[in-house]
């Protein structure tokens, strides 16, 4: 077992327990590694860094929304690798490139770091604007302004469990918008 695996798995376990700083650190590390991986892959099929960043963000959202599917009894890196590769193939298919993704070692995804101050083509404010009022309110209060769920419930005029459901639903919708945008841009 590599030190990457041990480190990332520890961060993931803490994240699943609700530790925000561990989660932030985990997502930071994963994004720099995913960036290096996708840039490398995309260079080979003639695609740019912005597209790679679109995909990095799509995968980060996917990791977030699907984090309950990680079985804590098994290694963490194959979980990330499988999602990263699934999303890569899906992305290439969606944007109509007849590229074949060679089956590579699971270690490749997390092998390199790329800390470029990266930006995707998506505008979070515009995407949030497409969400229903209460969903947007919940996400803005809790995820952008860092208020508690109770505060958000009072501000948005819904129950606390409603806020939680809205946040999940909203992030899922954002992931769908992002996937749609990349499809349309490349049409």
């Amino acid at each position, binding site marked *: 077992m590599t030190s990457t695996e041990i480190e990332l798995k520890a961060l993931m376990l803490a*994240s*699943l*327990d*609700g*530790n*925000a*700083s561990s*989660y*932030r650190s985990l*997502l*930071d590390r994963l*994004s720099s590694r995913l*960036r290096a991986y996708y840039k490398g892959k995309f260079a080979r099929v003639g695609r740019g860094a912005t597209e790679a*960043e679109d995909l*990095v*963000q799509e995968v*980060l*959202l*996917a990791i*977030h929304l*699907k*984090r*309950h*599917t*990680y*079985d*804590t009894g*098994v*290694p963490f890196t*194959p*979980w*990330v*690798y*499988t*999602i990263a*590769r*699934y999303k890569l193939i*899906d992305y290439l298919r969606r944007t109509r490139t007849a590229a074949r993704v060679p089956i590579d070692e*699971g270690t490749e995804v997390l092998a390199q770091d790329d800390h470029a*101050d*990266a*930006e*995707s083509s*998506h*505008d*979070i404010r515009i995407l949030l604007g497409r969400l229903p009022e209460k969903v947007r309110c919940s996400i803005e209060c*809790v*995820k*952008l302004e*860092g*208020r*508690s*769920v109770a505060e958000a419930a009072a501000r948005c005029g819904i129950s606390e469990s409603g806020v*939680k459901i809205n946040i999940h639903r909203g*992030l899922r919708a954002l992931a769908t918008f992002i996937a749609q945008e990349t499809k349309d841009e490349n049409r």
Partner: protein
Amino acid sequence: MKTDDLVAMLSTNVEPIGRGLVVRTISIAVAAGAALALGFMLVGLGVRADLTATRATVFLLLKVTFALAVVGMAMRYLTRLASPGAERGISPLASAVPFAGIALLGIINLGMAPSSHWNGMILGDEWLECLLSIPIIAIVPFAVTIFAVRRAAPTNLVRTGAVAGLVAGGISAMAYALHCTDDSLPFVAVWYGGTIVLCTLAGAALGPRLLRW
């Protein structure tokens, strides 16, 4: 959007996540699917009238055991397919074991009977009803199972769809067994086994469309 901003957003006020959610969700879905299939069978077909006879009870138990084995093996595989990277180290062939078992029993049974009886043993009285009922009863359990798997993260969509179809076919066969009066091993092997395989193929065809995320 800067990736740093996205990371900041996702990691702000992060909720703790319960463990074993994939297995739990799929188990609940399969249980619900089984209840619905049973209800569908009771309303549409009804339980066989001769259930008090020993031979009928023995064959009912045999059919249900076969169907349960199919569902059990397939469910174990399905929960792995629904979690990224967990598929490794588990063989798809394990799901075929119940089929091999019933086929073997069917062949032994045929071998012990005179060949003039084979036709009747294989076709039974109601092969057409069986051929139609099991796939039709499987539709609702399939939908419920797919709904549950979609909440997880399958990455091999053809295979996951196939195994969801296998689970649904097994559930359906379990429900249909309560109605079916054809009591012969070759019949169960061919018509139960065959229709469950049909459900599996249908699931494989539908998987990529239904499961994408």
